[in-house]
């Protein structure tokens, strides 16, 4: 049952250069289990000595069938599967899902929930960039940065755990708002984090930004021009490092983003170093947004009152017959969604994360298509790595910042 079938050279004939067929260049398998591929990514390299002629990515080793599985569940149950797509940006995936449902059924979200959503998503963005920085530096042999970034990340995971009970797969955002209100220690914890974090970013920069070894390994590696980036549909920090100032939080604001002041960092070079600079600056801007969100946090409910879609609180069940009926209907059957399709997109730490959700008039999604940024961004790896060495390939995989759960779904 578990014998391995190989892909033969015949099937790849159209992708490798003619020198490979003569035996002039070496075909090397950088297999699915590899320390630097950030997950199960398989690369078939065509090498001339150390120089890369061509890279053929082979994905699908983490394919989970989430899209088909979501069609078999109700909306409330399928929300659990959304966290596990891009597993470094759990709340961002939840946010897309909730925005899509709210757009389909025209559900309102209270103000407090919107501000808290922005706050948590920006904290999640910082934690995702911290993992990126730790693993990218680890691949380039700067191991201490890995230990430092994970220390900061623990603080963010503590905050998320305080609100939702789970460190990573929180499923904290639900259609109509949040699952429950934040506890009293939340504000103090976030303020404490905001006080200690900006000096820590300075610490990481002191270790890497002017380090001659880091500069040697990242300057002029994987240069991507802005025309190529636009042709290949790249979004996110990679696009911004190629001098195109495009961010969905400014271009098509959602969840109240137009009320916050923040900048979009860009860089002109388009190489690995530029992407590093852009992501470090994005962390600082996220800190700004979190500060503003915390200062302006209003009171009020955190979930919509529309009982057709939002279950009533347990205290009401003993008192009101309607609440009991709504509760019963929602938990056994689910809420109906019209037979239309919408596409909603947000800015995840990797790029544009979009969901095309189509209802079927009943409680199950008919089609949930996730437009994931890592899947589209990984296509430029062959383009970026032509002419570079194998050691640079490691830096390039890190700089595109892929998450295999996103790529394979």
């Amino acid at each position: 049952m578990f014998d391995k079938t190989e892909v033969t050279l015949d099937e790849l004939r159209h992708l490798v250069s003619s020198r490979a067929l003569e035996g002039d260049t070496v075909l090397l398998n950088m297999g699915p289990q590899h320390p630097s591929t950030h997950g199960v990514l398989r690369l078939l390299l065509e090498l001339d000595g150390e120089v890369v002629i061509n890279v053929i990515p082979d994905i699908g080793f983490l394919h989970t069938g989430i899209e088909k599985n979501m069609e078999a569940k109700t909306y409330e149950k399928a929300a659990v599967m959304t966290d596990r797509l891009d597993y470094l940006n759990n709340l961002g995936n939840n946010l897309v899902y909730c925005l899509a449902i709210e757009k389909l059924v025209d559900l309102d979200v209270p103000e407090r929930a919107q501000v808290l959503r922005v706050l948590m998503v920006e904290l999640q963005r910082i934690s995702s960039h911290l993992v990126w920085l730790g693993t990218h530096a680890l691949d380039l042999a700067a191991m201490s940065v890995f230990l430092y970034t994970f220390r900061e990340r623990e603080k963010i995971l503590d905050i998320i755990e305080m609100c939702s009970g789970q460190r990573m797969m929180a499923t904290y955002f639900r259609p109509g708002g949040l699952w429950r209100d934040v506890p009293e220690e939340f504000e103090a914890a976030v303020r404490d984090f905001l006080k200690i974090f900006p000096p820590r970013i300075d610490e990481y920069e002191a270790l890497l930004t002017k380090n001659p070894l880091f500069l040697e390994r990242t300057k002029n590696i994987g240069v991507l021009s802005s025309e190529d980036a636009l042709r290949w549909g790249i979004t996110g920090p990679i696009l911004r490092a190629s001098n195109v100032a495009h961010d969905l939080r400014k271009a098509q604001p959602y969840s109240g983003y137009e009320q916050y002041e923040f900048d979009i960092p860009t860089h002109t070079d388009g190489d690995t170093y530029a992407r590093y600079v852009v992501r470090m600056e994005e962390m600082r801007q996220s800190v700004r947004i979190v500060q503003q969100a915390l200062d302006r946090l209003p009171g009020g409910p955190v979930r919509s009152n529309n009982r057709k879609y939002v279950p009533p609180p347990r205290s009401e069940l003993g008192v009101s017959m309607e609440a009991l009926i709504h509760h019963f209907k929602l938990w056994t059957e689910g809420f109906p969604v019209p037979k239309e399709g919408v596409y909603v997109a947000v800015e995840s730490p990797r790029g544009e994360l979009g969901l095309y959700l189509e209802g079927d008039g009943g409680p199950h999604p008919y089609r949930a298509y996730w437009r994931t940024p890592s899947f589209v961004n990984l296509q430029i790896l062959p383009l970026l790595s032509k002419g570079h060495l194998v050691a640079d390939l490691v830096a390039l995989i890190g700089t595109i910042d892929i998450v295999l759960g996103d790529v394979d779904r």
Partner: protein
Amino acid sequence: MSEHVLETAKSIQGRFGVESREFRGDVSLVVPPDQIVQVCQTLRDEFGFNLLAGQTAVDYWPAQEPRFHVIYQLYSMPHSVRIGLRVPVNGNAPSLPTVETVFPNANWLEREIWDMFGIRFAGHSDMRRILMPYDWEGHPLRKDYPLGYEEVQYTFNYDEIDGRKHYAKE
């Protein structure tokens, strides 16, 4: 809703004779299969829709004919608006011309549609399976493909499933 999208939709409707639908502020055009490449080219060159954000298919079996609708999501960066395209394709050896020449990132998106739905794209440079293993049979996201649900082992059927489940030894 943006003026630019409405103008674009009206102009494309006039030129190519396609119908347009609107829901909660999103405009989508229903395009016949043989005109999709020209419509994409026009949208990219004249109206500034320079990003193919997503491409996927939906299977309407057995309720509707044609069975598949291939959906394109285009985004315009200069104007910050979105537009959607829908192409009905029927279920008998479904095939569609590729838009890889207009948007190069349709390469992997179309490979995924071939893998999951079985819709071929004529003129594609590399039509192979991308997510499933190379020798997999069937196209998983079609509606007549089973989910593959395996019976869950609870306490009441523990021994029965234990007996027939294939455990690895050494």
